Each structure stands twice: as C-alpha cells, then as structure tokens.
C-alpha cells in the first residue's frame, strides 16, 4: 500500500447479487473523482486484494467501507466482524445489508428445505447418494472446512454495529454520488449510529408524479393482467404498489413507468415494520364490504379480494424480512405458497 495519505476505501459483498457494485460504477465518470480521492484497500469485485491483506491492516485502517449483502453464512459473518474492526466508517450499502432484501425471503423457509431444493428435488438434479455440502470434511491431508449455511438471514446491523445505511436495491447512483461527494469534499455527515443517508424521509408517493384520487379497489391485478392507465396512481387501479410504506429517495422510478413500487428503500422514518404498514394501507384501499352486507358475508367478500394478492408475506416483506417484527417464519411450519 502506498503511503500517499489518501483515505482508504473498501467495498465488500456478502450474500448479494453484485448489483450494488454495478450501482457504484453507475455513477459514471464521477468514479474517477472517487479514485482520485480514495485509495482502494479492498474491493474483491474490482481489485485484487485478499482477506489476509485486510487481516494485516491495523484496526481502523480503512476509512470508508461500503458493505453490501446480507449475512447468510458464517463466512459473511466473519467478514462483517473483520471489516467492522478494520473500518472507521462502516456503511450498510443497499437493501441486503440494510434489511435482508431478497436473500432474507429465505427466512420463510428452512436451510434444510433450501438444500433439498438445490441438491435433491429440482428436476435438473441427479444426486442418488443424497450428498449435501458438509461444513467439515476429513480427508487424508486433514480437515476441509466450508462456511456454515445459517438457518436465518440477517441484516448487517444485526451482526455488527453500522455507522450509516444507504438503502435501495440497488441504491440510486445520484444518491450514492451525493454521499460520496459529501465525504470527498469533507462536508459533515449526520451523526453516525445506523443513520440512514442517501435517501428521503417520507413515502415514495410524495415523489410520485402520478395523479391520486380516492382509492376503492375491487381486486388486485398482477402486472401481466392489466395495462395501467397512464398518469393515474397504480394502487388506485388495483396494481400492487408499496409506495405508501416505502422510503423516498429513488424519484419514484418504478411507478413512473407503470410498475408498482416493490419497496426496496425500506420503511420510511417512524415506521418499524414496512409490511405491516403496507398491510394497513392495503386494507384501507379495498372498497369491498359495506354496512349493507350481511355480517356473516362480510368476511368472505373481503377474503375473496385479499386472495387476489398472492404470497402476501413475500410481497409485503420482499425487501425487509430480516428487519420485520417477526423476522422469520416458525421453523416447524412449512411455507404455504
């Protein structure tokens, strides 16, 4: 490492898809300004460093570490602890590190069931000996170890303390740049302690240009079942949209082009459980069931509408499962589709 006095930058991926690294590169030629301002100390996707290099750094050597990905295996967890120790500022970067994201949907099932799908029951798998990966294997030369696959996926801040959170799946490039620019120019960031930066504070609806009227919907439509009327609120048309329960900051990119918000920026300020908040909002837009209906009939009428929203758990907690109030399904119970 050169002793050129530049602050040290690291980026690491745990259980993630790699989209967050792409998002960082998506800031365009401003990446050159980042390169100018920082010395890369560790970034497996872009530069050749090894874990033992990081282990060799003194504690607090890395000035800024963007950590993306959820904590799925013991290796993810070890890296989280290592990078926490070596970094002055640790940022949970993107939805996986922030709140579990898609990997955390696995919390609705069990590690066994996942292994069964991957190594046994998929039609393309041929595994007559029913082999499964073993954390420890003894061979003539000694012991071979691979990371342990945990039962439950966690967010980064459920394993180590984080200083900042940049939400999004992936975070929007203009938001990434806004944060990096603030750091590069030495502007003061808000006080650390799991603070959300690079996003708004209110709901996506506030940024959404679609026209909103009173909502009374008779059923939910899946995207392939309906062509949305342009310029009109999607939820009003029965198209599931997480806007009312999701933090702004993305400029309502999805609703703008007729696709309901998926909720990737997580819950907005003051909301603990994004799915529960959205559930409450959905219940308010369903217009079925009135005081004229028979008391005994009401429940069936409403249930028929709710049935048009398949997989409520996976839909309402698509991104926030690890940080939801329940965090995971009871292991004994299977998943109903």
């Amino acid at each position, binding site marked *: 490492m050169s002793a050129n006095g530049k602050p040290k930058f690291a980026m690491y991926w745990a259980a993630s898809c790699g989209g967050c690294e792409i998002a960082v590169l998506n800031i365009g030629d401003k990446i050159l300004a980042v390169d100018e301002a920082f010395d890369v100390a560790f970034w497996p996707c872009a530069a050749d460093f090894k874990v033992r290099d990081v282990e060799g750094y003194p504690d607090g050597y890395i000035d800024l570490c963007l950590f993306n990905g959820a904590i799925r295996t013991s290796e993810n967890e070890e890296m989280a602890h290592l990078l926490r120790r070596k970094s002055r500022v640790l940022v949970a970067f993107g939805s996986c590190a922030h709140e579990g994201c898609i990997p955390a949907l696995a919390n609705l099932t069990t590690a066994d069931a996942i292994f069964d799908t991957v190594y046994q029951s998929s039609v393309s798998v041929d595994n007559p000996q029913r082999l499964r990966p073993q954390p420890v294997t003894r061979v003539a030369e000694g012991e071979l170890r691979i990371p342990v696959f945990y039962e439950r996926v966690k967010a980064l801040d459920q*394993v180590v303390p984080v200083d900042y959170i940049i939400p999004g799946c992936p975070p929007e490039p203009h938001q990434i740049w806004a944060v990096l620019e603030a750091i590069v120019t030495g502007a003061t960031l808000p006080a650390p302690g799991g603070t959300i930066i690079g996003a708004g504070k209110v709901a996506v609806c506030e940024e959404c240009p679609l026209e909103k009227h009173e909502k009374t919907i008779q059923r939910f439509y899946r995207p392939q079942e309906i062509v949305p009327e342009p310029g009109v609120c999607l939820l009003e048309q029965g198209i599931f949209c997480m806007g009312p329960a999701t933090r702004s900051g993305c400029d309502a990119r999805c609703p703008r082009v007729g696709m309901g918000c998926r909720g990737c920026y997580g819950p907005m300020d003051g909301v*603990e459980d994004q799915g529960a908040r959205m559930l409450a909002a959905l219940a308010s837009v369903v217009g079925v069931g009135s*005081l004229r209906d028979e008391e005994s009939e009401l*429940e069936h009428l409403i249930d028929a509408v709710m049935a048009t929203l398949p997989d409520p758990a996976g839909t*309402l907690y698509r991104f926030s499962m690890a940080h939801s109030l*329940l965090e*995971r399904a*009871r292991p004994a119970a299977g*998943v109903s589709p």
Partner: protein
Amino acid sequence: MSESYEPVIVGFLCNWCSYRAADLAGTARLHYAPNMRPIRVMCSGRVEPDLVLKALREGADGVLIAGCHPGECHYVEGNLKALRRYVLLRRLLRQFGIEEARVQLVWASASEGTVLADAVNRMTEQLRALGPLRWRQTVLGGNGHQPEDTQASAASQPAMEEAVTP
C-alpha cells in the same frame, strides 16, 4: 415452565362496545378465563397490524381484537377497516407458521358481556391446546449466528408470560 403454561392473550378492546362488554362481564360477576390482558383502544380500526405482530414477538401466545358489530361502529366504518386488515393479516400469519386461532377478531357490543367472556374462554382453551408461542426463544433464538442473541441470551431473558403471570 411448560407444566405451568398459561396462555397470555393480549386483547385490544374498542372503547365504545367491547371494552364496555368486558366491563359488563365484570359487573355481572361472570366467571371467565383470566388470561386476557385488556388494552383499551378507541376503535378496533385503530389496531395497526404492527401492534399485533409486536405482541406476538414479545411473548403473547395470542391476540384478540374486539370491536362493535358492523353497522354499530362509533366511527361508522372503523370496524370494517379492522376486518379488512384482519383478513389479510390472517393470510400473512399463515405464511409465518402462526396458527389461525392465535389471532382472532370478535364483535361484542356493550351489552354482550357474555359474548366477550365466551370468546376469551374459547380462545384460552384453543391456545392451551396449541401450546406456547414464545417467539423470541423458539423462532429467533439459536439459529447458528454467533453474537448476542443466540440461546445463551434467550435463556437468560425471561419470557413475557413468566414476567407477567403472578
């Protein structure tokens, strides 16, 4: 603790009907299961799903939401909103492996002390049959992760039912 298991029910009772039904059950000296911890809310439509989830997470074995009969809501349609939430919440909880009997919605008017008492009795028996939920210990504890919240700390933290039950 399993031999002395008493279900803990968190009851959200609406101010205008169901809380008065509970009051009536009391003044009428009805005998019914003491397992419900009543919380008065202004309307069943005020019961956010978060409140139900939080109760389950923090140690309740079941949650009872009680409101006015449809058409009798003090706020006209608050109980309909509660019903819509409840119906969707029920579908959600199924996916989390939480039995239907653990979260129930009943209508009890101010004059129906017996209806409320019966509902509490019935639910207590159902929960007794289902056994304790103990979400923190059985679902969130002991999942292989190393830091704080593995079995060690889950065991040292008293369950809500132990802390509350006399």
